């Protein structure tokens, strides 16, 4: 709304900086990183592998408490001290070491939330290794747990790096230890290295479970065995592994060496391969399928469409020459939101509509769900697609004001934001009402074959009366 027209409308420049920082911190650390993995992972991963619970239930609860503590700290950081942080969610040094705003509390919130992530990752790895049902070999395991397994390794190995980085930042602010500030003998690019060594793999923490959800939904609604099961399973692991090594593509214009730049660009193009494998396999799974057009399937289709736009524009940013032109412009904002919102956000909604009858034992209104999907898709596209165009025209990101030539794009985006908001109101109304008064759902309304559809809705305590014995793969549709 602030950017719908040039000049100051609702916010001051300082408030605008605070708002986009807080938006980033809350959405990244509190919503999209734990969103799919923690919510649907905790609910469904144990059931899908035939376990009664995760390996360490108390550790899981502890992880939840830590998350709540971190969340409260993040919210408090907005109101205490000298104003909400204004550094952007990336906390780039040296500005973050000097800003008078409340950086330390926000950084500590991210630090605390990291512990929650690590514990969940550890729990999931152990659970998948140790508690799979008898007969469920690695390649008989459903693909959502596979994606969570790859995600868990990233959570476990990458999160400590951002933890120590944020502590180094606090140490520099409080004790003037020169890690990042050149005036103190530090190197600001070191902060970017350390920050992105975590934060790029964190993007895969967000998107890998989303891919896992889509891989569950498509065979269920196409009534087809997943095409290239092993390729999808292993591509999750490949994305996790290679995704760990591409962080430098956030730093092409930061002053990194030329050698490092071309190496990171090369690796970035490599990571596109396993992502593309998944997309091709999803489409191949649908080929000659008996597709039933239900709300989760619509959300999944919107995911694939958005994810492809997000992925292909990522190659423009991953390429050294083109990145120089669009770096730090609205193009990056559009690309990022196409992956995170168009990808993870739509997958979250798909998962919510897919597993809703299993969670609540009730069914929502399909017609309203379909309309909410269309409204959100239209709102999302109208909001973010113009950002690609104004970005290519040269509109920098995170700017409070802009030149008149960028107004059309911004105005269209503002309209999209309203449509998107209406879409979310529809989802909220439909699901909240249905959770209370919706029609009682069958235990397997979509005709799925994975284990969660073979038990009662909602699942009983400890999921299974008797642990099932697995004799065939998870998607053997006849």
């Amino acid at each position, binding site marked *: 709304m602030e950017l719908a027209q040039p000049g100051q409308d609702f916010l001051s420049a300082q408030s605008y900086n605070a708002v986009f920082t807080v938006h980033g911190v809350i959405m990244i650390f509190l919503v999209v990183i734990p969103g799919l993995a923690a919510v649907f992972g905790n609910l469904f991963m144990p059931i899908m592998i035939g376990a009664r619970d995760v390996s360490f239930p108390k550790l899981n609860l502890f992880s939840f408490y830590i998350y709540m503590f971190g969340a409260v700290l993040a919210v408090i950081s907005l109101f205490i001290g000298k104003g909400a942080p204004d550094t952007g969610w990336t906390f780039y040094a040296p500005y973050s070491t000097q800003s008078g705003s409340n950086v330390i509390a926000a950084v500590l919130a991210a630090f605390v939330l990291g512990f929650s992530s690590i514990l969940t990752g550890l729990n999931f790895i152990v659970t998948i290794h140790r508690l799979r049902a008898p007969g469920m070999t690695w390649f008989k395991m459903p693909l959502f747990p596979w994606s969570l397994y790859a995600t868990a390794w990233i959570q476990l190995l990458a999160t400590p790096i951002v933890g120590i980085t944020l502590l180094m930042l606090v140490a520099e602010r409080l004790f003037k230890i020169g890690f990042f500030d050149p005036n103190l003998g530090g190197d600001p690019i070191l902060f970017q290295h350390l920050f992105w060594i975590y934060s790029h793999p964190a993007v895969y923490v967000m998107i890998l479970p989303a891919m896992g959800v889509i891989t569950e939904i498509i065979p269920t609604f196409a009534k087809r065995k997943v095409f290239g099961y092993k390729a999808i399973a292993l591509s999750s692991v490949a994305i996790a592994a290679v995704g760990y*090594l591409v962080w*430098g593509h956030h730093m092409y214009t930061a002053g990194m060496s030329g050698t*490092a730049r071309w190496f990171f660009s090369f690796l970035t193009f490599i990571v596109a391969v396993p992502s593309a494998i998944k997309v091709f396999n999803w489409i191949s799974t649908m080929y000659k399928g008996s597709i039933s057009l239900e709300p989760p399937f619509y959300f999944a289709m919107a995911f694939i469409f958005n994810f492809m736009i997000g992925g292909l524009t990522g190659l423009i940013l991953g390429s050294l020459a083109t990145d120089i032109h669009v770096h730090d412009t609205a193009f990056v904002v559009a690309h990022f939101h196409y992956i995170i919102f168009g990808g993870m956000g739509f997958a979250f909604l798909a998962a919510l509509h897919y597993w809703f009858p299993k969670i609540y034992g009730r069914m929502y209104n399909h017609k309203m769900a379909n309309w909410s999907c269309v409204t959100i898709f239209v709102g999302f596209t109208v909001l973010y697609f113009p950002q690609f165009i104004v970005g290519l025209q040269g509109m920098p990101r995170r700017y409070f004001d802009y030149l008149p030539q960028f107004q059309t794009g911004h105005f269209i985006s503002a309209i999209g934001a309203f449509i998107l908001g209406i879409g979310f109101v529809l989802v909220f109304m439909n699901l909240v009402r249905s959770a209370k008064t919706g029609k009682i759902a069958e235990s397997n309304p979509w005709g799925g074959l994975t284990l969660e559809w073979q038990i009662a809705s909602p699942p009983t305590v400890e999921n299974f009366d008797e642990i099932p014995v697995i004799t065939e793969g998870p998607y053997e549709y006849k």
Partner: protein
Amino acid sequence: MTMNKHHITDYKTYGWVLAILLFLTALTVYITWFDLKALTIAAALVIASVKVTIVLTYFMHLKYDSLVLRLMVAMVFLLIALVFVLTFFDYLFR
């Protein structure tokens, strides 16, 4: 891997491990007297890696653990090594 496996390492082995760790700690300090230029950090990291490997192998009993666990640890080492190498593609060629 069965739960009732116990491995008792004799004091002599622990003694040797301790001696090697102390020697490598002294070596870490000693090499700071020399200007190894680009290899300064690499040398420190190689020594530290050897120390960590010894601790994991003997003190943390990785030697007696299953192949899967040993492979997991090896993969993590490899990953961290790659992260260092990539970071130094920047620092060494800047």
